[in-house]
């Protein structure tokens, strides 16, 4: 039957809002990592404008690929915008360009991958940064100058982290806006952040080390919880499983920050949960088994 009326809060609007909010994050990253230093005369104009190239590469490659695939040039633009936000600020542009091209190629081949493409990209950048480039999440100025960021700095975004995801205040604002949209799985970020924060709080109480509570303001966790965990394609749909999935991501992230670097734990945790989820779904669905966990 042809559909003749449809819910007025269309998914298209959700994508538009999503894109706008991501752009806001990019601007905050641009200010924090370069514009701010330009105003303090610590960076010249060319170095200041360099982060814009991350954005142009992401969007440009996406548009070119869509053009050659004969799809709408705006398709998956938000995905490519996220990529420019989650790289370390000091990541070399040329390698980034290569990765973006590889990402857009790989996306065609790995359409039904059980991992989300963005997460896969992030894991690749972590491997390259850690083992080959030996860089962390510091920007050029932080690499050469001593710094100390307090709790308020962490909250406002003056923080070491991905290029555009350091401001928790902005992330909270974005989460509130996204939550107003009917199609956003708003309970998932809440459960992820709670299941990560509560053990940290309990742990600091037991160890009487309240400096540890600062780890709650881990911008990587907040960004992942708000943007990557609720990604529709890879997350569950029923209320019960959404909670289980989110709690698993939160708890495993908490466990991994004690083992791995605090910045990377959450991505590995999500990768692990997505893998378990994908495999469980795959096997439970075999032979038309209706016991699918969704």
């Amino acid at each position, binding site marked *: *039957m*042809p*559909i*003749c*009326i449809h*819910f007025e809060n269309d998914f298209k609007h959700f994508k538009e809002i999503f894109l706008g909010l991501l752009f806001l994050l990019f601007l905050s990253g641009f200010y924090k990592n370069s514009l701010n230093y330009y105003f303090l005369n610590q960076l010249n104009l060319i170095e200041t404008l360099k982060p814009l190239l991350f954005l142009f590469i992401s969007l440009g490659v996406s548009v070119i690929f869509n053009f050659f695939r004969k799809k709408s040039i705006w398709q998956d633009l938000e995905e490519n915008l996220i990529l420019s936000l989650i790289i370390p600020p000091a990541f070399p542009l040329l390698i980034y360009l290569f990765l973006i091209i590889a990402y857009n190629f790989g996306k065609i081949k790995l359409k039904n991958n059980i991992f989300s493409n963005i997460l896969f990209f992030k894991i690749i950048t972590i491997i390259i940064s850690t083992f080959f480039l030996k860089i962390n999440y510091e920007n050029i100025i932080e690499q050469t100058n001593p710094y100390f960021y307090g709790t308020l700095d962490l909250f406002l975004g003056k923080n070491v982290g991905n290029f555009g995801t350091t401001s928790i205040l902005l992330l909270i604002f974005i989460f509130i806006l996204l939550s107003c949209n009917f199609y956003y799985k708003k309970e998932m970020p809440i459960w992820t952040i709670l299941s990560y924060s509560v053990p940290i709080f309990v742990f600091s109480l037991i160890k009487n080390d309240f400096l540890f509570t600062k780890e709650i303001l881990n911008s990587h966790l907040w960004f992942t919880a708000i943007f990557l965990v609720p990604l529709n394609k890879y997350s*569950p*749909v*029923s209320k019960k499983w959404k909670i289980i999935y989110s709690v698993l991501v939160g708890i495993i992230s908490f466990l991994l920050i004690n083992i791995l670097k605090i910045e990377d734990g959450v991505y590995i945790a999500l990768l692990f949960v997505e893998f378990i989820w994908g495999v469980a779904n795959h096997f439970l669905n075999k032979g038309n088994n209706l016991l*699918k966990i969704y």
Partner: protein
Amino acid sequence: MKKLLTIAKDSNIKVNSQISYFLEPENVYLPINKELINKMQIKSVKKGELLYNDIYSPISGQLKGVLNKNNKYYLIIHNDFREEDLYKGVEEFTTVNIKTNFIENLKKYNHFDWDLLTNIKTIILNGIEDEPYVANKTFLHCYETSGILQMLDLISEAYKIPNVFIYLKETDRESIEAFNEYLGTYPNIKIKILPDYYPIGNEFIMQDFLKLTPESYIFSTEKMYDMYVKIIKERVKDTTFLTITGDAIINPQVFKVKIGTLLKDIVKENIDFIDHNYTMYVNGIMKSEVSKIEDIIITEDIRAIYFMKNKKYVSKDCSNCGKCNEVCPVNCNPYLALKTKGKYQNEKCINCGLCTFICPSYIDLAKYLNKKGN
């Protein structure tokens, strides 16, 4: 109970505030079994005359023959426009007459199991349309208020039912006003207002929403009016209300039409199109089937016709948002039906169409969930 949705009204799909009539069709077409065809003789019939198995003639005229439409057979009666009524001269019952042996009179109405009312403490009269943009009940309430209330009152009195409520939608101002005008005469009947949620007019959803006990019974206002006509007026129901609306027509309206009329005839004389590139839906846009004008003969089951401009909603891959499951008022898991390509079916499905309505990928989920859609 799940949270129900309010469906935002499209200002292009509304009906005229005045009722229109289509009571003099040239021919009427009444469904007939193939076996009965040979037994029918060409003769004159009067309005209200029993033709066969509970089928009465809605007009006076001449039996003309049989029409075969998609392997369904219809008896054609040619209208002589004399409206010769079988009941002309038969005195109508007064309330005093009706009250004596009322329960015995009720039992003559064999479309309802009257024993169901023996242990009932609350009667609910459902005055809410099941489908959006249909206004049949509103017009019925406005034109037949006294009959509906009289019947309701007599039933509650006969079965000694203490609580009688009429449930209406908050946006249906006309119905609220119509009933309020008469309620002084029936102090035992009370009006209750419900929010404009979809599909609150569905009997099962209403039962759930109001958390009704087994001591309550829901009647629709149409059923009550049908009883009134057949039991109190002792007449045959020969007309029905029909909403014709949609964004492809200029003049959406509610008609009172003779049962058995061809839709084609009504549309030809009364409806002007904005856009001839339309799809016709029968009985509602949320759950109905698509049909052609030529195929529709008006029966009591046909309540609404929608002429909707063809929209270009392109179905995409499922985005796994899970909203279909979230909005389903009876929890019947359309997501699983989609993922198993219809192997999973749920008999609880009321075919409300909310899953399809909400789906951001424009997937017709009802098709997978409901065998009717396949």
